[in-house]
């Protein structure tokens, strides 16, 4: 019996410690999240909200780069991403990358990328959607901020800024905490 009691009290102490640690980790996580929200880049034009645009740094001699972001449509009408500009690139297109078995396929999204009312579209390396910059005039370097523009069918043009992340990055740095 005494052994049992002792074991129980040890367990209680451990429980308290764990919950304290847990609370600490949770509050640290909340703080980190708040800082993420504070630095998250957001751009708006009419009903279109663009969050955290980023580009992958390019290897030497690369003539193409993929750009990523989240686009939301807060309005009641569908809209389409139909074009864009990046001063370092000659050409802009919206592409979809798909794996057909083990074969990588890339296609231009015909007629632009549609964003339905209330829809939030993620352009990221796993979703397959990206904006493609072709005819790069110079390598894009990690840590740089690049000015660009997106053009929507209804909302019109909006100036945005892309953060350049590491070449193999899977997401913007703020998400990596």
């Amino acid at each position: 019996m005494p052994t049992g009691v002792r074991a129980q009290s040890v367990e209680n102490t451990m429980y308290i410690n764990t919950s304290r640690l847990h609370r600490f980790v949770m509050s640290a996580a909340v703080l980190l999240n708040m800082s993420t929200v504070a630095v998250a880049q957001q751009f708006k034009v009419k009903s279109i909200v663009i969050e955290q645009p980023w580009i992958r740094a390019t290897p030497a001699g690369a003539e193409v780069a993929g750009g990523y972001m989240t686009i939301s449509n807060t309005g009641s009408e569908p809209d389409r991403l139909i074009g864009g500009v990046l001063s370092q690139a000659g050409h802009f297109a919206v592409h979809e990358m798909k794996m057909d078995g083990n074969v990588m396929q890339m296609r231009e999204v015909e007629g632009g990328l549609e964003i339905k009312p209330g829809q939030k579209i993620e352009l990221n390396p796993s979703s397959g959607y990206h904006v493609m910059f072709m005819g790069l005039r110079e390598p894009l370097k990690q840590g740089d901020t690049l000015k660009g523009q997106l053009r929507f069918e209804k909302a019109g043009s909006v100036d945005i800024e892309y953060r350049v992340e590491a070449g193999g990055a899977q997401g913007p740095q703020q998400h990596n905490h």
Partner: protein
Amino acid sequence: MRKIGQNTVWIGATLVALILVGAIYFGSNYLRDDRGLPKVAEIGGPFSLVDHHGKSVTNRDYLGKPTLVFFGFTHCPDVCPTTLYEITNHLKELGPDADRLNVLFITVDPERDTPQQLALYLSSFDPRITGLSGSPENILAAEKAYHIYAKKVPLKDGGYTMDHTATIAVMNSKGQYVDAMHYQAPSATTRAKLRRLLNLGNS
């Protein structure tokens, strides 16, 4: 009585034989080096290409070490640089052990990926990765040998992109296909495969 005794001898002998066969079989599995790995498919074969230093090479130049063979092109925004960055990270992590490995990046777009373009592009990755280009016919022959699908797809602006198989073929030191590494496989899986490949190649 005598008959039973004979049966017992036969059963005993059969059991001993079975145990021996089993021991040899399992023993050979334990003792195998990478050359003992079964050849699982007719993937791979002779090729004659040019490396990113401008040197003419054939498949024979890469025998003696396990080899990773990956096809791609430098006008690729996603799969190719991602794979090359991942391989770079793995090689860095393996350190000098990775010297016992060949890594080949063969272009599916020889028209734009000259040896010079490959040299420039690969300067951003681990220097142990070799880029290979060549004449369209020789590239096609290499694609066929490795069962690689590659197709030119025109883009609206007049340029083009390439659909292509994104799998890495893993060849043993005898140039036999032993495994595949798939795009977006968990990093831990690739790491384990590489370590196994190198340990086996070592014993």
